[in-house]
């Protein structure tokens, strides 16, 4: 039976066009060159969740991997994410622990936590980070907090301990107000950018599941001219 025009459009023309267009890189390369001429740095927006072990792997790795590049790592914590009404959400959260354990082993990281963390138990961390100014100190805090959560502990999350970590890395007290609103803002931006789950890295027009594509993120930055320094 011959396919109808609508069928051909949906099955062949549209997906093939998406693939072909995804290979067009000159607009992004031109944009990147223009940014550099204006003295602006490259950007990697990383949407992540503290209750997600794969986010821990991605944040720890990217913080290291992007050193030496003229690129800002913007850490955008979220709480609500995922596919709407996904029947496999609990299975995915549990599988993420096994998966993060394997990914961590590739770089010598050993996961200590064996059970999923309830999102609400660590929502305060997302609120603190979302309300704070981006920069190296905030990155250090996120790396240290995710290490403590996933690589150095297995029990309940003690808020006071993370408060001490905040003082150590950023000085002063964690932001007291506006955090929840800032997290919702990140979640809206993540939806606008199209990623539907964490950890997701937005790199000048393309997004990647960050824990799966760490080397590809670096390759994208290379392609745009933000190569690693000597």
């Amino acid at each position, binding site marked *: 039976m011959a*396919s109808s025009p609508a069928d051909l459009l949906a099955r062949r023309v549209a997906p093939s066009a998406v693939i072909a267009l995804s290979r067009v890189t000159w607009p992004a390369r031109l944009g990147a060159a223009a940014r550099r001429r204006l003295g602006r740095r490259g950007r990697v927006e990383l949407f992540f969740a503290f209750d997600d072990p794969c986010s821990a792997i991605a944040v720890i790795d990217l913080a290291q991997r992007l050193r030496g590049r003229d690129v800002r790592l913007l850490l955008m914590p979220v709480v609500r994410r995922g596919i709407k009404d996904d029947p*496999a959400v609990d299975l995915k959260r549990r599988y993420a622990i096994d*998966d993060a354990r394997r990914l961590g082993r590739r770089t010598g990281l050993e996961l200590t936590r064996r059970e999923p963390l309830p999102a609400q138990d660590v929502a305060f961390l997302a609120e603190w980070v979302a309300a704070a100014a981006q920069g190296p100190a905030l990155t250090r805090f996120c790396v240290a907090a995710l290490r403590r959560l996933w690589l150095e502990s297995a029990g309940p999350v003690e808020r006071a301990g993370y408060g001490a970590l905040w003082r150590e890395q950023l000085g002063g007290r964690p932001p007291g107000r506006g955090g929840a609103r800032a997290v919702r803002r990140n979640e809206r931006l993540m939806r606008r950018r199209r990623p539907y789950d964490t950890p997701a890295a937005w790199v000048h027009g393309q997004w990647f599941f960050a824990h799966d594509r760490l080397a590809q993120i670096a390759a994208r930055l290379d392609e745009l001219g933000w190569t690693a320094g000597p």
Partner: protein
Amino acid sequence: MSAQRLDFFFSFRSPYSYLAGPRAFALPERYAVDLVFRGVIPMAMRGQSVPREKGLHTLRDVAREARRLGMPFGPVHDPIGDGAIRCLLVSEHAIDVGREREFVLSASRGIWAEAVDVASDAGLRAVCARAGLDWAPCAAALEDPALRARVDANTAALADLGHWGVPVFVFAGELFWGQDRIEDLEATLRDAGLDLPTWTAE
């Protein structure tokens, strides 16, 4: 060394399965494993919705991954519906005649790199011929309820494992999801002492 079973759950509608295929079927050449191909019904035909964002991201991400792996990707012809089921039925017949590797690689390449419409007889026949399969038994497989029962059993087995997507490998009860987890699977096979000696010509 006796070969150990390695299950390979695969969907013809999954471009990630297409990317995994050549490396999956090459595993028995390097490890003492029996690769058991298990074709499953696509997620979107099992009542699980696939949002538009996920579909678009998958196409773009697979394009990047295909380039990295040196595999062709696009033009495509989405086989959801009859095309996917027909390939599953022929793949069961191909298992019976020992040509599942050839058929799976031929059909998935046809779908994801050559825009072959496997829902049509002409399209399916072409990928069967390239796999060295005669058309008459392939056409008979499309009507064989025993083969359909095997496909349904594979699909149920994946659900029983508590998993939702493909490609999935299962070795000694451990599950590896994704074409990008083959390296972790290989590490596990090496840890199990299953790597085969490499022979070099003198």
